[in-house]
């Protein structure tokens, strides 16, 4: 006896999210920092921002804090972040 079984995932049909292409360089770019509103995120981003600016030459940062950690960022906030070359989203739990 042999069986043919079906894949239970959506991923197998190409609906999975894929990673964005990485930036070629960080120097002079604008980075968005999306804070998920947990208590430790601001401290983490202060640190990340400092490293990105001093070590990698990132020129500008757009920092936004979600109003609710359990819900998606509002569209207008995503619109503001879209001016960045790349966005880092972090959970400071």
């Amino acid at each position: 006896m042999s069986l043919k079984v079906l894949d239970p995932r959506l991923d197998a049909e190409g609906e999975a999210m894929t990673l964005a292409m990485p930036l070629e360089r960080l120097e002079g770019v604008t980075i968005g920092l999306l804070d998920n509103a947990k208590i430790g995120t601001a401290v983490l981003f202060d640190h990340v921002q400092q490293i990105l600016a001093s070590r990698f030459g990132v020129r500008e940062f757009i920092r936004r804090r979600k109003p609710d950690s359990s819900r998606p960022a509002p569209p207008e906030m995503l619109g503001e972040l879209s001016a960045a070359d790349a966005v880092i989203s972090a959970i400071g739990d």
Partner: protein
Amino acid sequence: MTEQPLRSATYDVADLHEANELFQRNGWTDGLPIVPPTEDLVRRFVEASRLGPADVVGIEPVRRRRITAEKVAIAAVMAGGLPEYMPVVTALVRAVCEPVYGLHGCTASTGGSAPFVVVNGPIRRALDMNATHNALANGRRANATIGRALRLLIINVLGGVPGRLDRSTLGHPGKFTFCVAEDEEDSPWPSLAAERGVPASVSAVTVLAAESPHQIMNEWTADPREILDTYAAAIRANMLTYSIWAGNYALVIAKQQRDIIVAAGWSKADIRRYVFEAARVRRGDWRAVGKSAVAGRKDEAQVYAALRSPDDLLVVAAGGPAGGFGVVVPPWYGAKSLAVTKTI
């Protein structure tokens, strides 16, 4: 009979054992064995849903995952259910895809909740669901596999794999299955679904993103107020030791206590009103439970209610005939997820 093709990728395996090993190896199960979702079985389950395989049952609102009848059927087969359970499972999927349920948040949260499912109406009998002895636990196929089907969908379709999208610190055993039928035959009260606007002749599911149930005991009184004071105390304990935020709590009240409450002439609405008043804490009460660091951040005399209004309380009649027991089912995190009812 549907002629539409199934779209899922397929895998050839030698036998039942190898099928299960494939799913275990790939992390496509909750850890328990699965019934292999073969094409024939999946077709039968899709047909029982009265949908086409490509029909979208629900869309998870955050990541926009489209949950098709085919994927629901695969999960329901894997869970060990029967085709006739499909209308319940699809109603459940529609319910958790409502934005107010916050499926993404409660799946991803470190808080580790599980969907607590209450089934009402004629379909409970038709599917031989359990509402009495061991009502919240093992024993009956429909209760076990309807809840499990939703878990397997969360794992495989939403990516709610522990350590990946599912960031639960601890989770709780209800994440395997957490599905109860209300004991409508042995209760004079309107069912939960009826209280939420569904006609008594119509079957429905209600789902709540819930933490683990907390069992209470009080068999030493004939006063409904005293019984409900015990439930309120358990809710207050949850507010102080877990989360103080108001949201949907559920009470599952078993027969012995129900009889006392009913004999006193109390309705579910009376229960809700009483618990709404009784389940309150002061911010300063946090000091007695080791949370003095946060107690003083705001006015410690401030009173917090467990429920935003009496309607936030879900009252369910279920449980075996003997024992002065009931449970409090707390919400995942205040009102960030709200209970949703859908007709079947």
